[in-house]
């Protein structure tokens, strides 16, 4: 019997073809919308052509074999007819014409495509999209889709067939969100925009016949505009999950995953305990944690994690200091912290004395300073600064949650900017809760423009700290 087992070497990555060149696809200067309709005004391709023509700094061409005129612009009869090189083709023709259209794009030297058209694997015709993928692979021609919304790059390009006035768009920022579902992407964009979280890129990959999560992970890992990479994933193909987590571990940026289909279990009855317990989702979730991918289990976690990790990329342990002008808010935050595995170390008398010594005279006798720190409704900006300065310097804390109620009379709208600077100086993550009411917008932006994430709920603020603790293999 052999009794020595060497620990294994780290798993090796199977060789993969060279990465796709997505530059012209995601940063196009010239765009063709193929499949515009001269009969149906609100045809998806027309919506796309119209919004790009009116709103984006790219040159756009409409294509339909019939030619003619759309919204006063020439309609070209084919991609070859366009006199200059086209970077991005948006293909919105019927499924049976997509293969020929793709061939034309490749022949014309187009840089890449998004195939909006439906009628493929989602209706039981995987063969059609396989033909597209085979052709594209042969010619190293990247395309997104089919059956997708395509891409959104703030201020640059938007291929969604949703009229501009109906869409809520995040501003330019550091988060890239890759979604198998177009609907989920649009919905999340609305939420991100409401919370002021900026996008570097949004991609709806639809049936992901060619370009899949792994390809985009590799592209985004090297993309200088992207700081946080988030995915909405329904499932991986055979063996693909392992390659994805291995690539995510090599990626220097935080990777966040939001999974649907958590409850569907294998169809076949299983006769071992292990197979029964280790269902698809249990394995998925364990693999994410093992490889340092931050799994969001609901939409609130997704937006909170994206916002927190776009401000603070360094993983931390979970010891939290809480500052509030309200004892109740402090207590609620403590409950939420402990539920999410974060600890609230108490300050001893000597530590409390040191903070108290620097508080304003009206707050000094009434503040509670054990952690959570309750500065009371009389707290001034200086009191918040004093407490934050002390907590930011503490070696016993990894992050600070500030629960700010702007109703208290002594707080000014400069506070966010000032606290942001304190914590940046000490390199201690600060996360703020401020009720998102329009009249406090200046205060909120004071935090946000100084790199401090702000949540409109206490729970959101706690989840932001949790994100920082999860951004590492565990």
């Amino acid at each position: 019997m052999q009794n020595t087992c060497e620990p294994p070497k780290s798993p090796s990555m199977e060789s993969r073809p060279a990465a796709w060149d997505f530059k012209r696809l995601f940063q196009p200067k010239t765009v063709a919308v193929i499949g515009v309709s001269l009969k149906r005004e609100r045809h998806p391709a027309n919506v796309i052509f119209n919004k790009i023509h009116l709103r984006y700094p790219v040159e756009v061409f409409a294509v339909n074999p019939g030619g003619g005129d759309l919204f006063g612009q020439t309609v070209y009869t084919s991609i070859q007819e366009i006199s200059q090189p086209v970077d991005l083709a948006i293909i919105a023709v019927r499924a049976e014409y997509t293969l020929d259209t793709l061939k034309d794009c490749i022949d014309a030297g187009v840089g890449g495509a998004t195939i909006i058209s439906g009628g493929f694997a989602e209706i039981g015709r995987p063969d059609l999209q396989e033909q597209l993928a085979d052709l594209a692979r042969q010619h190293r021609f990247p395309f997104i889709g089919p059956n997708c919304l395509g891409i959104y790059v703030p201020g640059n390009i938007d291929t969604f067939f949703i009229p501009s006035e109906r869409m809520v768009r995040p501003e330019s920022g550091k988060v890239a969100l890759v979604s198998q579902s177009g609907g989920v992407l649009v919905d999340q964009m609305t939420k991100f925009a409401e919370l002021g979280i900026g996008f570097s890129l949004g991609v709806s990959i639809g049936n992901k016949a060619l370009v899949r999560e792994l390809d985009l992970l590799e592209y985004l890992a090297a993309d200088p505009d992207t700081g946080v990479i988030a995915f909405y994933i329904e499932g991986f193909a055979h063996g693909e999950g392992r390659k994805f987590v291995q690539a995510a571990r090599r990626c220097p940026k935080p990777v966040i995953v939001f999974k649907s289909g958590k409850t569907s279990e294998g169809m076949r009855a299983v006769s071992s305990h292990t197979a029964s317990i280790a269902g698809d989702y249990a394995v998925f979730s364990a693999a994410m944690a093992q490889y340092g991918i931050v799994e969001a289990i609901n939409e609130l976690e997704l937006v909170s994690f994206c916002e927190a990790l776009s401000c603070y990329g360094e993983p931390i342990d979970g010891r939290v200091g809480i500052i509030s002008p309200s004892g109740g808010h402090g207590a609620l935050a403590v409950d939420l912290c402990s539920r999410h595995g974060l600890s609230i170390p108490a300050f001893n008398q000597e530590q409390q004395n040191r903070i108290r010594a620097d508080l304003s005279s009206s707050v000094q006798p009434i503040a509670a300073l054990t952690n959570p720190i309750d500065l009371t409704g009389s707290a001034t900006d200086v009191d918040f600064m004093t407490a934050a300065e002390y907590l930011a310097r503490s070696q016993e804390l990894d992050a600070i949650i500030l629960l700010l109620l702007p109703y208290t009379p002594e707080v000014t709208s400069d506070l966010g900017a000032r606290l942001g600077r304190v914590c940046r100086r000490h390199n201690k993550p600060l996360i703020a809760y401020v009720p998102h009411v329009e009249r406090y917008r200046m205060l909120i932006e004071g935090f946000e423009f100084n790199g401090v994430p702000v949540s409109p709920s206490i729970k959101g603020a706690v989840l932001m700290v949790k994100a920082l603790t999860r951004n590492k293999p565990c």
Partner: protein
Amino acid sequence: MLKTEIKTVLDKARTRGWVSEPDAKRLLSSSGLEVPRFVTVTDPDQIESIVADLGFPLAAKIVSSRIVHKSDVGGVRTGINSIRELTAVFETFSLLDGFEAMLIEQMVSGLELIIGAKMDDQFGPVVLLGMGGTGVEIYQDVSLRLAPVGITDVDAMIKGLKAAPLLSGYRGHRAVNRDELTRTLVCFSKFVMAAAGMIESIDLNPVMCSEQKCIVADARIMLPPVDGPTAA
């Protein structure tokens, strides 16, 4: 080579769909895992001579290609203290439908853990560590990890169990030998990687872990359907 040996044993069991306990234990033993000393008997007259150097108490289990869950059919007896008892158990087992032989092994004690493996379609080979015994699926206190696993992975797996304090010694109970548990899991994970294309799932349950050793008291290796996919 380990892989060749695994293939030989698994090919033999292919049509049945799972590997018998004696074969599974022999395979695991040659992969570096500890199993109790055991013998198999088909003739009650052999019992006395064959168990002579095992000592008492002993455990006895039915060996049958038709019975996967032995305890469900009354095919497991523990705490046997004499040849007379062993012979009586043999007679009872031999009346059970599908009886082929009886496995007799040394009793082992310790904390009951489960160590398992599964070929996942999306992620490939996965290993599991958890609280074992018949209540595994009720408590579901387990940690999962993509294989292969190393020492730091095993530490994280133990830390991930609700019952982790039980493994470090809790209220008068002795701690399990962490080095042995780690070695067992690392060896098991190597075995799983070598068998990856050939198996569907494995339960080592219970694995009895004490201050001295971790011993695989029961083992079940499930094979993929003959024409079915093998997740590699």
